[in-house]
């Protein structure tokens, strides 16, 4: 039991920020993200016995996180999420410094305009997971995942840079 708790605590300590960022990107609402985060931890704890070390620990954690997020959203689909603005507020280029937080807001708003599955995939890309890891998590082939990621990136960059600089990534 002690051993199990230790593994769980290590897993959470290593990945908590990443998991939470994915929750935020997926639901774009802090209180919902908090709840989803708790649910993911609960699922991690419940399914810890099924972790056999075949995949990287972080890959397994993200797989549980992604599956839980999809289930969670399906269960709460009828609930009212905060409506996102139709247009994204773009900052002038000189608004650096303080602008980082607003840039993140802008990024979250752009992610929120993506399809549900794409939000999760782009979060995994932003977390710097390899295409292979993301393919493992989503259960797709590496080639398909790569194509899909490129398409999502292009869409995201278009949303972030409306003046058509999507080729920059």
């Amino acid at each position: 039991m002690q051993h199990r708790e230790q593994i769980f605590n290590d897993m959470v300590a290593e990945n908590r920020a990443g998991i939470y960022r994915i929750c935020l990107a997926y639901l774009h609402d802090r209180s919902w993200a908090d709840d989803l985060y708790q649910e993911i931890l609960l699922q991690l704890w419940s399914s810890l016995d099924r972790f056999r070390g075949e995949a990287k620990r972080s890959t397994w954690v993200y797989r549980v996180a992604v599956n839980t997020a999809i289930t969670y959203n399906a269960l709460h689909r009828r609930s009212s999420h905060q409506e996102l603005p139709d247009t994204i507020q773009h900052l002038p280029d000189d608004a650096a410094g303080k602008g980082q937080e607003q840039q993140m807001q802008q990024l979250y708003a752009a992610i929120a305009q993506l399809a549900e599955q794409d939000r999760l995939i782009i979060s995994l890309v932003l977390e710097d997971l390899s295409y292979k890891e993301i393919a493992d998590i989503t259960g797709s082939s590496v080639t398909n995942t790569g194509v899909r990621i490129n398409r999502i990136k292009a869409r995201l960059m278009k949303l972030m840079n409306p003046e058509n600089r999507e080729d920059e990534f």
Partner: protein
Amino acid sequence: MNFDELQKSWKAQPLTVPEQSPEAKAQLLVRWRRQQRTVVLSNIGVTAGFAVTLGVLAWVFLSWHTSHGWLFSGSLLCMALLLLVYLWVIWRGVVFHRPDFSLPASAYASRYVAALRWRRKTITTFVWVYMLLLWLSLMLYFASVLEGTSMLMRISAPVITTAYMVIVKFAIRKKQRRQLNETDSLIKDFSALTTTDE
């Protein structure tokens, strides 16, 4: 702005991961589910057992109530009522819905605490009251059906029944203590969750 810059900002963003120990909450909810599963399984067993008992009581009543007086019918009725009330008591300690994560923890935690307190009261008080009343009903039943039989019979039946009930009570003492400890621990942790979540 290109994607690499976005990625760097993404990982460097200041983040406030929920303050309240989420690991503890996860473990607490798992413990709650486990406890509820145990209670439900035990309740199903008790309900099945009681259903058979109620059937037997009904059969005894229908077969012999004409040849016995009001004490016979009354004691059987008391036993049947006791079984039904006890079933209501044990099922009241079960919460059937899963935690609704769209609500703050305080919303479901207080409901769980109420159910756990009821469960605690069941173990510490209701079981005793139930056993005492059941014993009384059985004694009345014996008084009715053993009327006119030998002294040995009239004494041994109540004594054996009483001894059996005492032995059962002692046999489940350890299990009840364990259930109480777990219930108390859950009450304490859910109460703390309610406080920290406000």
